[in-house]
């Protein structure tokens, strides 16, 4: 008890600097935890990019039907069929991959009957699923049967489908819905019931030509981008559908000009030259992105190491000042019956208390930030312990060197 009460009295000495040190280490713990999380995420993103890009590039495909091209298409007797042929060729050619997929806003009615507008949906294709390796954590993934539109009435025609479409939900909806639940949805391509058949694996992503980067599907409704039809659809519906299906992404190992030439050659053969254009040449920014990501990762590492060093130096300096300032106090304790071992315990006890309280508060703050963050962080305590150990060891080393360097017994002759 005496040691404890004397230890508390010792802690109170230089309390302002102690609080500063505790705050400094708290900041270190929080920053290192989040730096490492960001680093981890950046590394995951980097890995994803490497995996997704491989040696190819993503391009966007847009229709170009105005002036001559529009006249050419309009003059065709069955222009919808031509658009469908273009789609077939895009999906089946062996020169590049056509990855049909679009982000669309939908409206839907949830289980409680509440209507939500502008919800994120993603319309995918079998090629898209394969390329990005989309899979489910629960239920089943969309398969060929889901891409057949059995009763294709949609609100573009002002009618509601009596059939159901199968959908897969992003991971964020797992707590709110069950497999087999149906949701009422409204979109230009489909209005009717959507039955949930599965939940995507957390962290599923696809490439977007709009954002020129990867987008997470965690908060998306994933719809099948219909490929075949068992019923008769109106011309206007089919035209809208193919305008959308033919405005998607290309993944190729050729240059944007080469891909453009391939498409021009094909569309010319159909009598609609210049009907489509290729854009968003990712080959220009991809290396820049990779370099930037490398720089960011390096920067984060540097910040984490820098902050840790700063805290270690602060703690070392603090102990240096405090031990020097307290030498006479230690001497008084020795004269009064303390052993040198008890004094050492007091000095190291302070390091331990400072480190543990800083780590505890730092961890608490990290959890509070995490809970109030829109991103989902998986905080690992070990991440915070590593800098704490480094800082604590440096501090303890400084204390040990100083205590061994100074002769406490002579300190009583020094002026206070």
């Amino acid at each position, binding site marked *: 008890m005496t040691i404890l009460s004397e230890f508390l009295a010792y802690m109170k000495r230089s309390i302002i600097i102690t609080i500063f040190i505790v705050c400094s280490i708290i900041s270190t713990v929080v920053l290192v935890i989040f730096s490492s999380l960001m680093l981890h995420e950046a590394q995951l993103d980097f890995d994803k990019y490497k995996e997704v890009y491989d040696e190819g590039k993503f391009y966007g495909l847009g229709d170009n039907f105005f002036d001559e091209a529009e006249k050419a298409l309009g003059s065709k007797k069955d222009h919808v069929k031509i658009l469908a042929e273009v789609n077939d060729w895009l999906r089946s050619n062996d020169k590049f991959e056509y990855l049909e997929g679009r982000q669309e806003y939908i409206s839907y009615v949830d289980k409680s009957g509440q209507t939500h507008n502008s919800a994120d949906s993603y319309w995918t294709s079998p090629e898209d699923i394969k390329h990005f390796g989309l899979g489910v954590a629960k239920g089943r993934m969309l398969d060929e049967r889901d891409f057949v539109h059995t009763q294709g009435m949609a609100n573009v025609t002002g009618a509601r489908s009596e059939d159901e479409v199968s959908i897969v939900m992003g991971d964020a909806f797992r707590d709110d819905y069950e497999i087999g639940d149906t949701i009422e949805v409204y979109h230009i391509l489909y209005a009717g019931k959507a039955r949930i058949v599965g939940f995507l694996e957390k962290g599923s992503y696809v490439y977007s030509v709009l954002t020129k980067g990867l987008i997470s599907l965690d908060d998306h409704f994933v719809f099948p981008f219909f490929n075949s039809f068992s019923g008769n659809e109106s011309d206007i519906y089919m035209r809208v559908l193919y305008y959308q299906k033919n405005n998607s992404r290309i993944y190729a190992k050729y240059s944007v000009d080469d891909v453009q030439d391939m498409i021009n050659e094909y569309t010319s053969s159909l009598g609609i030259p210049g009907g489509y254009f290729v854009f968003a040449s990712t080959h220009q920014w991809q290396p820049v992105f990779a370099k930037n990501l490398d720089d960011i990762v390096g920067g984060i590492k540097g910040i984490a190491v820098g902050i840790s060093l700063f805290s270690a130096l602060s703690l070392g300096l603090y102990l240096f000042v405090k031990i020097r300032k307290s030498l006479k106090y230690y001497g008084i304790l020795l*004269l*009064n*019956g303390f*052993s040198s071992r008890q004094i050492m315990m007091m000095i190291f006890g302070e390091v331990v208390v400072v480190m543990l309280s800083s780590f505890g508060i730092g961890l608490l703050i990290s959890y509070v930030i995490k809970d109030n963050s829109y991103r989902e962080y998986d905080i690992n305590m070990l991440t915070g312990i590593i800098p704490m150990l480094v800082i604590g060891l440096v501090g303890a080393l400084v204390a040990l060197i100083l205590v061994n360097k100074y002769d406490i017994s*002579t300190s*009583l002759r020094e*002026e206070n």
Partner: protein
Amino acid sequence: MVLDLRNIKKSYKKHGRKIEVINGFDLTVRRGEMVALMGESGAGKSTILNIIGGLVKADSGEMFFEGEKIDMTSKKALNLYRKHHVGFIVQDFALIKDRTVYENIELPLKIRKKPFKERDTIIKSVLLEMGLSTEEKSYPSMMSGGEQQRVAIARALAIEPDLILADEPTGSLDEDNAEVIMNLLRELCDKDKAVLIVTHSKEVANKCDRIIKLKKDTPLKEG
């Protein structure tokens, strides 16, 4: 014989060089005796005092307390010996400034795990003995040098030591206060305690029963 030192040697390393501070020192002190340790600066007076007080280990030699050999190689043995038998008085009093007189005297008693009631009785008794009964709530900074040294003596006495080591106990005091302190130390000897005083002052030394003079780099035997 309360204290018996035989052939004590002590050296320090400074800038890689070994400096012999004490080279064979013998000393005996009896109960009720007041011994002065004098000598020029660097002669090792304080080092000897620290060795006797168990604060510093000697390189070699033997130390007997009440006829019992103290293991000078063991920090634990030295700590125990210091804790139970030695009281210290130093030139600048070694009081903790942010604690009251009462709390300063209470510190060694708390370290020795004395219960509150016993602590309180002892503190009041030594304060009365030192003429400081009205000062128990005062802080050291509010007191004169003489009063502070009396608090330091009271604190040393509180643990009822057999041996009192005083390092320049009057060094910071005027003549009148020095006289008071020396009289108090003499009274302690009269109560069968042994007092060893390190001093530069001939007046102080002359009030002791014996004077031992130390010289640099010379093997010292009790004179």
